[in-house]
């Protein structure tokens, strides 16, 4: 009885708040996982532009991609969707689109000329049956290796460009009593590193066969096996503290001169920058075997099917802000990611990002990440296999190859 009364009372209170929130304003709530300092600076750029256009930005930052995405999905399913929500580029959104929960952006894209504004590969990742459902917002290169420059100088080697040079440098660092390699021990970054090794060792053809075509025979082929061997060798250079270590902690080991090398996407650049380090003098970034290209990953904004005219209006303004070239570029600079729109002014970019941008805009030198092509189920299955291999005492190379091949058909 009492519980019912109280429930009624709280409901009434909640309704009051809801009524209050419905005041005539173009409110756009955006769910995203950008919570670090650099990311927040990026968000600020987007929010400012939206405000300029007459909107009121409602910021809903939730740390951790999976947290943010499942919250957003629950909001959509619960009938109270945000105006826009951040997903990773790739197949994550397909089912939402399939259930009619997303807004079709085809017309907006045509009107705003997206076709000519951004690389086709990126735009196409948001296309289902010829219709556009996602707006790319950020781009990253995933297969970078990062080095502490003073250590490179100390052990007398130049920035490595191929595997022989990498292993030579690692050997020397080890001999000098330093941690040669400090990768992150979290499964998703291990997956990222494995992909980097596959592209660099097995080559673009094998990489594309595995990632784009999910070709199990390519996985069982010799080239892939060679990549697995390199990965294994690399793994053995990793320090004891690797398992479970986050990438910022790993990066810190390189920044502070305790380790020579780590692996990670262009976002590591932000960590170096935040520590006041300068590319070329304090640290180096490199893609090994760069002729094979760069693995692109990124984020897209999705726009749930609007509930009312006000929400449509808010989405229109958000779309306009996000696809605005100067805004996007300023966002990328602040965020430390690659500007994705053509005609961006790249002069202010940090050398590492500028280099990444060059790869990014050259279709011959860029290819999609597994997350762009695989369903989350396959990403997960493959990730399980990789992390079991990436930690000592897990799978043997042969077992791992089988597990990986099997993972490609997960659903």
């Amino acid at each position, binding site marked *: *009885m009492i*519980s*019912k009364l109280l429930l009624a009372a709280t409901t009434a209170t909640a309704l009051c708040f809801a009524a209050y929130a419905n005041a005539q304003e173009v409110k756009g709530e955006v769910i995203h996982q950008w919570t670090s300092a650099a990311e927040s600076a990026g968000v600020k750029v987007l929010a400012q532009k939206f405000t300029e256009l007459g909107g009121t930005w409602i910021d809903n930052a939730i740390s951790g991609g*999976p947290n943010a*995405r*499942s919250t957003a*999905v629950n909001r959509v*399913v619960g009938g109270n969707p945000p105006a826009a929500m951040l997903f990773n580029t790739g197949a*994550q959104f397909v*089912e*939402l689109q399939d*259930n009619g929960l997303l807004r079709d952006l085809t017309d907006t894209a045509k009107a705003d000329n997206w076709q000519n504004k951004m690389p086709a590969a990126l735009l196409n990742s948001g296309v289902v049956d010829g219709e556009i459902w996602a707006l790319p917002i950020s781009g990253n290169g995933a297969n970078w290796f990062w080095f502490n420059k003073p250590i490179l100088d100390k052990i007398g080697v130049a920035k490595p460009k191929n595997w022989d040079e990498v292993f030579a440098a690692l050997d020397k660092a080890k001999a000098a009593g330093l941690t040669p390699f400090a990768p992150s*021990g*979290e*499964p998703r970054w291990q997956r990222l590193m494995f992909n980097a090794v596959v592209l660099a060792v097995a080559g673009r053809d094998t990489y594309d066969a595995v990632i784009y075509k999910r070709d199990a025979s390519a996985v069982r082929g010799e080239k892939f096996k060679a990549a697995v061997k390199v990965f294994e060798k690399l793994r053995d250079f990793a320090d*004891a*503290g*690797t*398992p*479970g270590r986050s990438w910022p902690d790993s990066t810190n080991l390189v920044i502070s001169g305790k380790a020579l090398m780590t692996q990670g996407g262009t976002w590591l650049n932000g960590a170096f920058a935040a520590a006041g380090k300068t590319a070329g003098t304090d640290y180096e970034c490199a893609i090994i075997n760069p002729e094979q290209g760069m693995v692109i990953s990124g984020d897209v904004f999705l726009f749930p099917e609007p509930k009312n005219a006000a929400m449509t209006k808010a989405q229109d303004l958000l779309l306009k802000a996000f696809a605005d070239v100067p805004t996007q570029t300023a966002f990328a600079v602040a965020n430390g990611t690659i500007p994705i729109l053509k005609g961006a002014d790249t002069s202010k970019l940090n050398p590492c990002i500028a280099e990444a941008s060059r790869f990014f805009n050259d279709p011959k030198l860029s290819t999609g990440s597994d997350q762009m092509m695989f*369903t*989350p*189920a396959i*990403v*997960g299955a493959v990730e*399980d296999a990789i*992390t*079991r*291999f*990436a*930690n*000592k*005492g*897990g799978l043997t190379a042969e077992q791992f190859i089988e*597990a990986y091949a099997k993972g490609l058909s*997960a*659903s």
Partner: protein
Amino acid sequence: MFVRSPSSSRLQAALTLAPVAFIVLSVYVGGVLWAAGISFTRSSMLPNYRFAGLTQYINLFSNARWQVSLCNMALFAAIFIPITLLIGYSIAAMINRGVRGENALRTIYLYPFAMSFIVTGLVWRWLLDPSFGIADVARKLGFENASFDWIVNADMAIFTIIIAAIWHSSGLVMVVLLAGLRGVDDDLWKAIRIEGIPAWKAHLYIIMPSIGASIATALVLMSLTVVRLFDVVVAMTGGGPGIATDVPAKFIIDHMFERQQVGLASAAATTLLLLVLAVAVPLLILKNRRK
């Protein structure tokens, strides 16, 4: 034995139960049945109703992570429950002797339970870190060869989870058992002293059996911890190294959300519940029989 009650009051009792019954039926029973139903479908990101037969269950049991998860849960239960019980009981027995500063001690043992593992997991990770954790402290204290690398060792990492979980739960178990010990008749203690029964024997054969209800409660609480084990793992090892410390709840949650495999996750959740029932039902039947 129930006291005779008028139909009007019984109706009132039924009426007050109705909302709860409705919630329980719709959320718990409904939710469980729904999840069981979904486990027979192809649901991926959102639940759908495309029938898939036993596919999800076949996939589940051929999934290495699930196998590891179940083994870990069994191992965890086999070590965590007896040790927590032992520690909780020992402390309770010592406090029950009547010590000074009981309030302070009790609060100290209990505080870990007040903090969530989102919060304390990081500290535990630091403490167990092979390079700057307690091993480092020991080295600086002069034990130069001290090393403690369990948390990064696939074979030992699960034990670090167990250590942290014991730290988290011992206080609560202690309080529950202390409450039981407080209910033990003073005369029993006198009899034990007069008979000159050694302390450990007295506890094992006389006192522990006489606080059976409290021990049962502690066991239920610990079983809940075992089945729901999630936060500790995420905060300390993220399930690693590799998949070495994965547990069923983490498996379910990962597949439910990040991996968009609602069908597989539901199959796992249903299996987990069946396992709980397989343990609980015989116990319940046994308990009812004894009555």
